[in-house]
Each structure stands twice: as structure tokens, then as C-alpha cells.
């Protein structure tokens, strides 16, 4: 069974603090992971990705960490800003697949001023 799970439906943090969004996957056949951000009434936009050969990828305020032994990845946002308030989806490509993504359920982040 190939699943990507986001077990926290929502997260609230104060502006300037760190936001940590978590994602678990069930199958070691996943070999590339992506995070998407979605505002209401807009489509998801690609945020950051990481290959299974790495354990960290950083892009400005956004860092993704991958723990393969735990089948867990996390997205860190530092410092959090009110404009980061959105739904965040993690997603993954199973190894060998031609482009079909498996998405998690999403986590709604609220950053309070």
C-alpha cells in the first residue's frame, strides 16, 4: 500500500516562530518528495522538494528534512510570516513511476500576527 500521511489537520504558530509540518509515508518505494502550498480559491503551488539520497534541502526560509529510517519528512518554516498561512500538502513519487504523485491529506497552517 502506497500512502502519504499528514496526521495533523491544522497547526497554529505565532509570527516569527518556527512552523514544523510533518509527513509520514508507508512504503520505502517512494524516492522523491515534494511540498505544495495552497491558498483558498487557488491551485497548489510547488514549494520545495527532496530526493531520497539526501536528508536535507533548504530554500530561503523553507527547509525540508527527510528521515528515511523513520519514513518521515518535515517542512520547517523559519521565521513564519502571516502570508505563510495556507494548506500544505506533502506528496511523493513512487520509484519507477512516470509522474503520478501520491498526496497527503494536507495541514492547514495559521500564522498569527
Amino acid at each position, binding site marked *: 500500500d502506497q500512502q502519504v500521511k*499528514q496526521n495533523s489537520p491544522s497547526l497554529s504558530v505565532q509570527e516569527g516562530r518556527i512552523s514544523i509540518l510533518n509527513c509520514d509515508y508507508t512504503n520505502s518505494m517512494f524516492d522523491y518528495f515534494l511540498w505544495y502550498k495552497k491558498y483558498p*480559491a487557488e491551485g497548489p503551488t510547488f514549494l520545495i522538494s527532496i530526493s531520497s539520497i539526501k536528508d536535507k534541502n533548504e530554500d530561503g526560509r523553507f527547509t525540508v528534512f527527510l528521515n528515511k529510517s523513520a519514513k518521515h519528512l518535515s517542512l520547517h518554516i523559519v521565521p513564519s510570516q502571516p502570508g505563510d498561512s495556507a494548506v500544505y500538502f506533502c506528496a511523493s513519487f513512487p520509484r519507477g*513511476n512516470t*509522474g*503520478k504523485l501520491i498526496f497527503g*491529506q494536507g495541514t492547514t497552517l495559521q500564522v498569527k500576527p
Partner: protein
Amino acid sequence: DVKVTQSSRYLVKRTGEKVFLECVQDMDHENMFWYRQDPGLGLRLIYFSYDVKMKEKGDIPEGYSVSREKKERFSLILESASTNQTSMYLCASSLPRGLGNQPQHFGDGTRLSIL
């Protein structure tokens, strides 16, 4: 920049109607996808297409069909709309994974209500 355009932002239809949702991308992408997004369920894949006239069922194809007559256009068809198909529908496109790990690019979605 990749542009994926969905023909309608909001649509209201009646039960039993045949509904067409249109999606066009301007980046010559081989892959195109239709998802629906429902609260607590994330994005669920309905159908996808790897090339013109090719289609594959996703996770929830029942009650839907698709058409891809041209590379840039991918249509989702609700054969006989039902109230449980009220949802946000999202179209996406991407290059083939054989060209690297290509993220999917999404349109802004169609909020469909079936009355």
C-alpha cells in the same frame, strides 16, 4: 512560466446533467491530471493522461470520464452529475518523470456545485 488554465472558477449544475470541465496548458507537457479536493481527504486523483488519446484511471474514476484529443487540452466529464460530486476540481500538468523529477503545475481550480 507554466500556465494551466481551467475554463471556469465556479460552476453550478443540476443532478443528472452532463458536465464538462476544461483544462488547457501552454507548456507542451505530456502529462495531465485531474484531481478533486475535499476537506480532510487531500487531493485525490481521478484520471491522468500521459499522451494524446491516452488515459489511465486514478484512485476515484467512478462517475467520471476524460478526453484528450490535443496535447494541450484535457477535459473531465461528469456523465450524470450527482450531489456527491460537489467539490473543488483541480487540473495539473507536468513533463514526464523520465526527464527528471518534475513537479506538477496546477490550475486555480473549479468549484463545482451540484444541486
